[in-house]
Structure formats: C-alpha cells, structure tokens
C-alpha cells in the first residue's frame, strides 16, 4: 500500500471517526515533511455485539507540511502525543496544540517542562520518580493534590530514551533484531513479530503455516505470562497475599514455558525474519501443553480466591474509572480500552495464520474501572489458554524458516500485532535502493499513558499504585 497524498483539510477529514494507529514523518522535497497517518476503522458503537469490527480497512492518508501546520489535536485528541513527538523530531510546529510539551527530551534535561499547575496555597505537589520505590522503570509523575485527593496527574517520561527508533533503519540484521527485542523487554515477542512481518512484507515472502502457528504460540505465551503477573501485582498492591504470591510464581512458570521452547524466558531469539528459529518437536509441544494445563489450574484457583475476597473487590470496584468516551477520543488500545468497552483487537481486525477465525473472541468490560481491567485480563487468559491448547495439539507442518530476499524499493509497509498490552504498530519504508529509509514504532503504552493520567483525576492518591498496575504500561516502549 502507498500513502495517499491529500491536502491538509482533506487529510484532517480522513481521520474523523477512525482509530489513529500511527503518525509519522518522512523527509519530503526541499525541507518539507510528508506526514503520514496510519488509520484503522474506529470501534463499533457500544450497543453492537462485541468484536463486531470487521477485518481490514487500513488507510494511509498523508499530507505535506512545512514550518507549521494547524494542530490536529483540537479535532482529534488522539493525535496529541503523535503531534508532540512529530514536533520534537521534525521541528514542524502544530499550531494551537493545547499541550505542546517534550515527549522524550532527546536533548537531555528530562523533567524540565512546564507542568500543569493548580494554584492555591493549600495545593501541594507530589513529585514521584524518576526513581520509583519498586523494581520498575523510571518516569516522572507530578500530582496536584489537595490532601489525599488527586486533582490532576501529569506524566513526564523520556528517561528511558535510548535512540533505538533512530538507529533501527541503519542497523545490521542481527543488531536490529536485538533492538526490537529490547524495545519493551516484556513484549519481546510482540515487537519482534511486528518487525519481522514488515520485513517479510517488504521482501514479498510468505512464512510457512508452521512458523505462523509457532509465532502465535510465542505471542499467546507472552500474553499469558504478563496477564498473570499483572493480576498477581494487582493483588499485591492491595496487600492480598495469597493471590500475589501464587500468581508471582505462576508467571515465572509461564515464562519458563517460553524458555523451554526457545531458551529465553522472554522469547528472545525465537522469532526471526522468514519464520522462527526454534521448532517445537511433538514431545516438547506436548510437554508445554500439559504444563500449561497444570499452570492454568493453579491460576484459576488463585484468581478464584481473588474474586471471592470481598476486601479485594471493594478496592477494585469503581477505582480509576476510564470512560468509553475518553478511551475512544484518546485512541487507547489493548485490554485497557477493551475494559472500557472499546471492542478493538488486532487479532480480530487484522488476522493472520491461526487467528483467521471469524469468531475469535474479543473480551470487553463495561465500566472501565480496575475491576474491569482485571476481569478482561482474566477472560483473555482463558481465551489464550484454550487457543494455545488446540494450537499445540495440531501444529501444522511446514518449514521453520524461509530465506529472506532483497526488499522492494520505495515501498511502505505497516504491521499491526495485538501484543499483550494492545496494538503494536510498526511502519517501515524503503528508499530507492530497497534499504530501510525510516521506521516507526508505536508501542501501546505510547497512547495509554495519557489514559492513566485521566483515570486518576479525583482519585485518592493512595490508589495510584493500584491504578498504575491495572494499566501496567511500558516506559521504554514509550521512550524508545
């Protein structure tokens, strides 16, 4: 597919009612920048049956901008982060952007920005981070509080900026795989998959059915491990010991299943351009299948305990509510958006290989509170476990890996993968020689961070860790 170059008003109109998957710049003629949007169909309205969003429907509107352009954010709030990023990268100013602050601080001095401020002598600010209390990545959170109540939360990231996105096009094949597998360490499989699918599309090759099935195994194992860990962490945040300890251990067991398959607990080195690097022999597949069944039995028990504990549910319910409207307007993705009733799932919208099942379940919630976000994760674990079970029982035959070919010149490719956090979007463009010219990586966290900030308004500050865990976003996936 090629971007369709439009005038600015037409371009802006093209975005209406659609989900903005990515917004990137490509160098244009004589200092101008070609702004390309990747859009997918918007969510089905709340009344329709969940998952009614039909497959396909990708669009690539583009326009040429130079110097300044009228900000898209006013009409399409979901563009706010992309525009800030665009400005930081291309120095083209979106005029009228309500909140044009640095995203990644590529020039250093992180955290040096005008924070939104509620004035008044009673208001105090709580500044948390970059070094947090737990074993987590760095980021800066600025709360405007009156007593225990959060009036506003602003999140300023960029501490993790390593310059990976910039380095991707020129890197050797081996190094670029190392890059994408560490884009967000807990989503190694998701990003590796999105990256490889782009390369394969540009080279015009198709991977075998077996490789596709094994890729799906890797992706779903990653989802299971992370959802399980998140649920345990949620229990831990409210101090509920049994589920926290059990799920913590089970997450490790799930990671070990991936380790059993490819030697790395995070699935690094499993997915490679052209297919996969490790096969699952029948014995190994069966071993994973039985161990998975055992793990899921323990998981169900741990989660049953969580569901039955009144003291836990009291903490989860009506905490950190994110409305469906807000989730839609801000273009949130993944379990977070689905918990608010936005029935979007790339496995359903852009299916491939084993996902080509028109009835693949999309799990949604209604209220968008912590309880819903936990519920959606529980449901998705069940779906993934059942899917994996049947997949492992009937792995199709075929070669593991096909050889890569040269990539097409002047081509443009978009790859959308539903990682465990949500939609991962990779965009790659080649130059006239068929070398990579530019790459764009959109981790689901890039969008969802703002959802967290919004969900915190009017909440108790002591509930922040709980809300944060219920989103569980990646810092380095955002900072790249």
């Amino acid at each position, binding site marked *: 597919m090629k971007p369709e170059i439009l005038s600015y008003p037409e371009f802006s109109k093209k975005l209406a009612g659609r989900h903005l998957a990515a917004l990137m710049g490509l160098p244009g003629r004589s200092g101008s920048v070609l702004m390309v949007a990747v859009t997918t169909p918007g969510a089905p309205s709340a009344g329709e049956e969940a998952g009614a969003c039909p497959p396909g429907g990708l669009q690539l509107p583009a326009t040429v901008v130079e110097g300044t352009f009228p900000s898209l954010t006013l009409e399409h709030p979901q563009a706010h982060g992309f525009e800030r990023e665009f400005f930081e990268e291309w120095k083209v100013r979106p005029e009228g952007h309500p909140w044009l602050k640095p995203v990644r601080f590529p020039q250093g001095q992180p955290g040096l920005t005008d924070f939104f401020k509620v004035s008044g002598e*009673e208001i105090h600010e709580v500044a948390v*981070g970059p070094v947090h209390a737990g074993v987590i990545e760095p980021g800066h959170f600025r709360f405007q509080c009156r007593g225990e109540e959060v009036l506003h939360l602003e999140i300023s990231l960029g501490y993790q900026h390593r310059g990976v996105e910039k380095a991707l096009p020129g890197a050797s094949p081996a190094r670029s795989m190392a890059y994408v597998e560490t884009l967000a360490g807990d989503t190694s499989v998701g990003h590796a998959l999105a990256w490889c699918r782009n390369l394969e599309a540009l080279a015009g090759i198709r991977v075998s059915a077996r490789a596709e099935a094994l890729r799906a195994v890797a992706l779903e194992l990653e989802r299971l491990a992370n959802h399980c860990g998140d649920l345990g962490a949620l229990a831990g945040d409210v101090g509920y010991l049994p589920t926290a300890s059990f799920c913590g251990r089970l997450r490790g067991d799930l990671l070990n299943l991936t380790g059993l398959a490819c030697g790395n607990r995070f699935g690094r080195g499993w997915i490679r351009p052209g297919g996969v690097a490790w096969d699952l022999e029948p014995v190994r597949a069966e071993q994973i299948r039985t161990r998975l069944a055992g793990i899921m039995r323990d998981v169900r028990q741990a989660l049953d305990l969580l569901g039955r504990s009144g003291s836990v549910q009291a903490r989860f319910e009506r905490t950190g509510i994110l409305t469906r409207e807000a989730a839609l307007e801000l273009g949130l993705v993944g379990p977070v958006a689905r918990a608010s009733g936005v029935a979007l799932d790339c496995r359903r919208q852009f299916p491939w290989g084993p996902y080509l099942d028109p009835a693949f379940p999309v799990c949604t919630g209604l209220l968008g509170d912590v309880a819903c976000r936990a519920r959606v994760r529980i449901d998705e674990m069940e779906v993934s476990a059942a899917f994996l079970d049947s997949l492992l029982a009937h792995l199709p035959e075929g070669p593991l890996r096909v050889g890569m070919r040269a990539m097409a010149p002047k081509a443009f490719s978009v790859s959308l993968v539903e990682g465990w956090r949500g939609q991962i979007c990779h965009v790659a463009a080649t130059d006239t020689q068929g070398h990579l010219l530019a790459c764009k990586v959109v981790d689901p966290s890039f969008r969802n961070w703002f959802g967290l900030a919004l969900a915190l308004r009017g909440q108790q500050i002591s509930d922040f860790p709980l809300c944060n865990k219920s989103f569980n976003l990646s810092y380095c996936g955002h900072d790249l």
Partner: protein
Amino acid sequence: MLRVVTWAEQPSDWWGWLLVLTGLVSGILGVVFALAQHDLKRLLACHSVENLGIIALGLGLGLLGLSGGSPLAAALGLGGGLLHVWNHAWFKSLLFMGAGALGKATGSLQIESGGGLLRRMPGTGGAFLVGSAAISGLPPLNGFVSEFLIFMSALELLASVHPLAGAAGLGGLALISGLAVACFTKVCGVVFLGEPRSPGAQKATEIRGSMLVPMLLLAGLCLLVGVMAPLGIGVLGAPLQQLAPQADLEPIRGSLGWVAALGGLVLLAGLGLGHALSRRPSQPGMTWDCGYSRPTARMQYTAASFAGPLLEMFSFVLKPRHHGSPLEGHFPAPVGHHGEVCDPFTQRLYEPISRSLMRLALRVRVFQHGEVQLYLLYILITLVALFIWEAL
C-alpha cells in the same frame, strides 16, 4: 465561677453536668476549628476555646465528684482545672509570643507561608516546640500534669459514683488531646520544619533577644512545672483542702512524683540518645526526591493537606467551602483552588443577629429627625405612658 459554685454546701449534679458538657463541646469544637485554620493567631485563639473547654471539663468533673461524694475525684478535677488555668496562661502566652515573633520575622501569620524556620530562628522555634508539646498535653510538660489530674478525676468517677460522666470525660479529653497533637504537629511541621515556602520565610532571621528571653523563660517554666509536678500539687493543696477537705492527696502526690521522674528521665535520655546519634558518622545529602533534579518548595505537604483527612471526618461541623473551577477536558488550562472554613458562630449566630439588629435599627431611624422639639415630645409621651402603666 468556682467561688460561686462552691458557696453552696452540696452542689447539685446538674451544675457539674452542665460544665462537663460545655467543656466537651467547646473543647472538641475548639480543636477541630483550630485544625482548619490557616492563620496562626486564629488557630491559637481556637485553641483557647479548646483549653477553656478542658478547664470547664475539669471543674465539671470535680463538681460531680463533690456532689456524688467522691472527694478524691473532686479534688483531682478541681485541682486539674485550676492548674490548667495557670498552665494555659503560660504556654498560651508563649505560643502567642512565638506567633508575634513569627509575624515580625516573616511578615505573615499564614501557616502556609512559613517553613524551615527552626533553622533560621532556633530560639523561637525551640521555645515554640516546647509550647506546642505542652499544649498538646505531652509528658513531661505542664500541660500533661493538669490533664493527668483531670483524667484521673474521670477515672475515679468512672470507677465510683458517676461512671457515665467519667466515661464522657475520658473519651472526650482523649479525642481532644489526640486532635491537639495533630494540630500542633501541623503547625510545627509546616511553619518550623522543612524548606521555606515563601520569600518571607526564606529571609527570616532570629528576633531580638529582648523578645526571645521571655519566650525561653516561659518554655522553661512549662518544663519546670512538668518535672516539679508534686510541688505544684503542694501549691494547690491549700485551696483544695478547702474545696474537698476529705480528699487524701498523698497517693496522687506519689503518682505525680513518678510521672515527673519518669517524664524527666525520658526527656534526658531522649536528648542523650539524640546527641549520640548525631555524633555517628554521616554524610550530607538532599532530602530523597526520587532522583528528580528540580524539586520546588511546592513539593512539600501543605498544612491544609496535612489536616485534610481529619477535616474530612469533621466536615459535618466544619462545612468547608472550596472555590475553584473543575478541570475540564483532556488538556485543561491552569486553574486556581482555594478552600476555607468559616467560623460557624460568626456565620450562623452573630451575623444573622447583627443583620436583624441592623434592619431593626434602620426601621427605628424613622423616629430620628434631629429636631429637639420632637425628642422632647418623645420623652413626654414616654413619661405619660409610664404613668399610665404605673397607674394600671
């Protein structure tokens, strides 16, 4: 008041009850309102209400002791109340002087514009800390001694003749002192500790010695009464013998001796241990700020936020008002926020009365013309009316 009440041979119960109830209401309301104040002088004024409440509570318990026939409770309650009158005079003058010094040094009496003053005004700050501990009723200071006596009186009543009053006094006074601790940790913490929150506090310096010395003297007095508690009872002995002659105060004197000794010991040992700690090897640093490079003074807890959880619980009496526009949209514009607690008496009692008085006055003005003849006529009419009334 005590004089009048004790004229009667056997005071009746309801006098005591009345005093206990008034004491409780004024004590609890006083401290709750103090907790909500932003201005140091107003806060201290509210605490006067609280302390008068404690005094009334002590006297009330004492009267109940008299009427119920428990001389010990009577002596303890009355003695505690009387002692608290003294004590209050000392620590409250100390605190007001401290507030004055603060106003002079920083140019503001707003609590929120203090901060870090103990470093800049160690004398004032130290004296104020002692006064705060005293007014919060902490051992080994004088406030604890008088509250100790009142508590003892309540316990006596509880175990003997007036259990209900004893329980009310005990629970009420406990709540009051718990809240007083909250209130004075707020003041000391926000005004004297941490980093300066305003330019005034930034450049504050210690006040003149002539202002400082009385404060230090008063602070010393607070401590002295605390650790010399058994002697204090001796001073009170004579009037108490008159009020409650049958009371045997010897065990109380013993208890106070222990209180003073142990309290004094705690203070000395605490200072010693603190000193020992400060001699340990240390390296200077910054307050831990999560590695953030640009902390500001706004990143300190404010007094309002500090008291927030407690005020929330008492919002049914305080009726706090918050001014400020809500945040709108995903990317709100900066907004301001301001909260205040109005004095309910001003708001719901004095203001309506004064308003209706004014209205009445305006109506009455019809009669006022400024002409002497008319006024003479008014007098005449009044006289006639009086005569008629008299005749009837």
